[in-house]
């Protein structure tokens, strides 16, 4: 199996707090991997270190594109990371609230477009073509995510579940080969979670991308993921298939007192 993401000995400290403490992690092509752990374990911090929002204190992060280019991500800016092909969503939804749903997705297309200021002012044939294409593509993405009836709605006026989906749609618009989802099912009801399950499977199968997902809903996690990583206090304490992880005593101990949603 060829790895698309290789994390070795990743460390991040905030003052004296070791939010991440020597984490190793790999994700293969077209794989769905779940990252679980109690609140405050360092999962979101890991995402932030991977995507360049935080600069890791130590260790290395590398991604390998489907074409086989390997890039070391340490110290790269978030926008660079995204344009290299790793996109993410946020635990607390971060949509562009006062822009329309379509515009949110169009922003996702930004890094795959080229028009600059002269193009914008002159509006030459190339720019017009690009604009038309981006509207076209964005609309199609919205259709895929069943968001097309909201096209001109402000993002802030969408129902909660739709906002979560829009965040994924927007991330997908950047054409990633690796997608990071931070608690995508948080706050969703059973039906919405079920839809999300289908959506993620569909994404993996149709778009051939790898997905790393943080989630607390164990039913979703076990049904979706090929492998599970468990972190606690910034360390990886277990990894394996859902069946292996679920009966691992270390994991059960880490979750003791902490409820596992079934």
């Amino acid at each position: 199996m060829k790895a698309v993401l290789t994390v070795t000995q990743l460390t991040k400290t905030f003052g004296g707090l070791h939010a991440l403490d020597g984490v190793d992690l790999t994700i293969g092509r077209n794989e769905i991997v779940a990252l679980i752990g109690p609140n405050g374990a360092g999962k979101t911090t890991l995402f932030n270190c991977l995507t360049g929002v935080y600069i890791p204190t130590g260790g290395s992060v590398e991604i390998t594109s489907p074409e086989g280019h390997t890039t070391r991500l340490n110290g790269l800016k978030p926008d660079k990371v995204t344009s290299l092909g790793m996109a993410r969503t946020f635990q607390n939804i971060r949509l562009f609230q006062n822009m329309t749903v379509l515009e949110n997705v169009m922003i996702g297309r930004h890094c795959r477009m080229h028009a600059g200021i002269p193009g914008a002012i002159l509006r030459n044939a190339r720019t017009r073509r690009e604009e038309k294409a981006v509207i076209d593509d964005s609309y199609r993405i919205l259709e895929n995510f069943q968001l097309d009836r909201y096209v001109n709605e402000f993002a802030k006026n969408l129902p909660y579940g739709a906002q979560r989906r829009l965040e994924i749609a927007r991330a997908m618009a950047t054409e990633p080969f690796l997608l990071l989802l931070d608690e995508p099912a948080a706050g969703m009801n059973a039906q919405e979670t079920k839809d999300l399950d289908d959506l993620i499977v569909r994404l993996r199968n149709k778009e051939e991308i790898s997905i790393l997902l943080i989630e607390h809903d164990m039913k979703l996690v076990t049904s979706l993921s090929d492998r599970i990583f468990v972190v606690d206090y910034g360390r990886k304490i277990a990894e394996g298939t859902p069946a292996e992880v679920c009966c691992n005593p270390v994991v059960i101990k880490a979750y003791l007192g902490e409820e596992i949603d079934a």
Partner: protein
Amino acid sequence: MSEISEHKILFGWEEIKKSLLTCIWFMFLTFPIMVIQVNTIHRTVEWRWERLFFVGAGAFLLSFLWRYMIRRKEAGIKREETAQNTHQDLLQRLLSNPRFSRPALAVAVLFFLTFPLVFSLYQIDIMTTALIYVVVALGLNIVVGLAGLLDLGYVAFFAVGAYTYALLNVHFQLGFWICLPIGGALGFLFGVLLGFPVLRLRGDYLAIVTLGFGEIIRLVLENWNEFSFGPSGIANIPRPGFMGMDLALHQNHTYIYYLMVGLTVFTIFVVRRLQDSRIGRAWTALREDEIACQAMGINKTRTKLSAFAIGATWAGMGGVVFAAKTTFINPASFTIWESVIILCCVVLGGMGSIIGVVAGALVLKLLPEYFRAFSEYRMLVFGTVLVLMMVFRPSGLISSVRRVYRFEGRNKLEGQP
């Protein structure tokens, strides 16, 4: 039913008591400064009691209005939280309806084109100044309204443009038409130079740093006599010539007027196109959420810098015209408060809305000219406008609307502004 209870709330005894308290409070508050005028040299005191009455009456009445507005605002927030559709107000609906907006545009065009034929030299002058502010405010609108960067040193770029023309003319006898693009280019250059180090700062610090840069530029112009001729400024800056001809005074003013109309139209054209482009969307996204914006692959620094520098370009060009029109410039025209006035135009009209900003700049520049009484209280009013707009209507008089796209059936796409 509800109407009666609302009246009761508005004029009930409780409300009157509150207003009375407010009234007494403000009479106390303004007492020394409004009423007592001490002259320590002539050893006299002037008591201006009548003012206390005005303050009291004003505070009493305004406090009803204030509470009513606050209540409406809070109700409005609740409505917005529940409503699916963002509600648009009458003005916006009118403007987006072509049956109204087309004739309105035609009337506006006709008005501005025939203006010099109808009105006196004095009026033409005033309108020209107002148009300079329109252009400059539209430039600031890119920075503040679209990209959400509060630039309090904006007038520095205006000064750069004005001094570019004045100095190049004094030293090298360069003409207006050469200096106009040079002024714009230097504005851009300064925008990049000043913007680069400061744009990674958080919003409020950015505002203060730009204020600092603005004041530095003004103070340098004031003190560096060899370069800028100091506080006395530069006089006898030539007005623009027309194909090498020297024009008579009246013709010349008319000429500058049309030139400004042209520049305004050009600015509106460019800003509209920028707003509705890849870059323009990135600016707005950056204003909405920087972190999400970067996660979408947008280079934060470059995007901010482009907004900052393009805004500065327009200030630079506006400055050149300003110098040519007034024929005299000195550093005193470029204080921080000038930036605040331009900001006020943007805020009043509606951040991010082109029509709004044009209207805001025209209103704020023309009103003081036509109402002399108003002109004395000009700055007081500007301050009040800033506070009230932020409290009650942060989106401005004519708030910006997002572009609506129509899709007829699957895959048949058509964008409609």
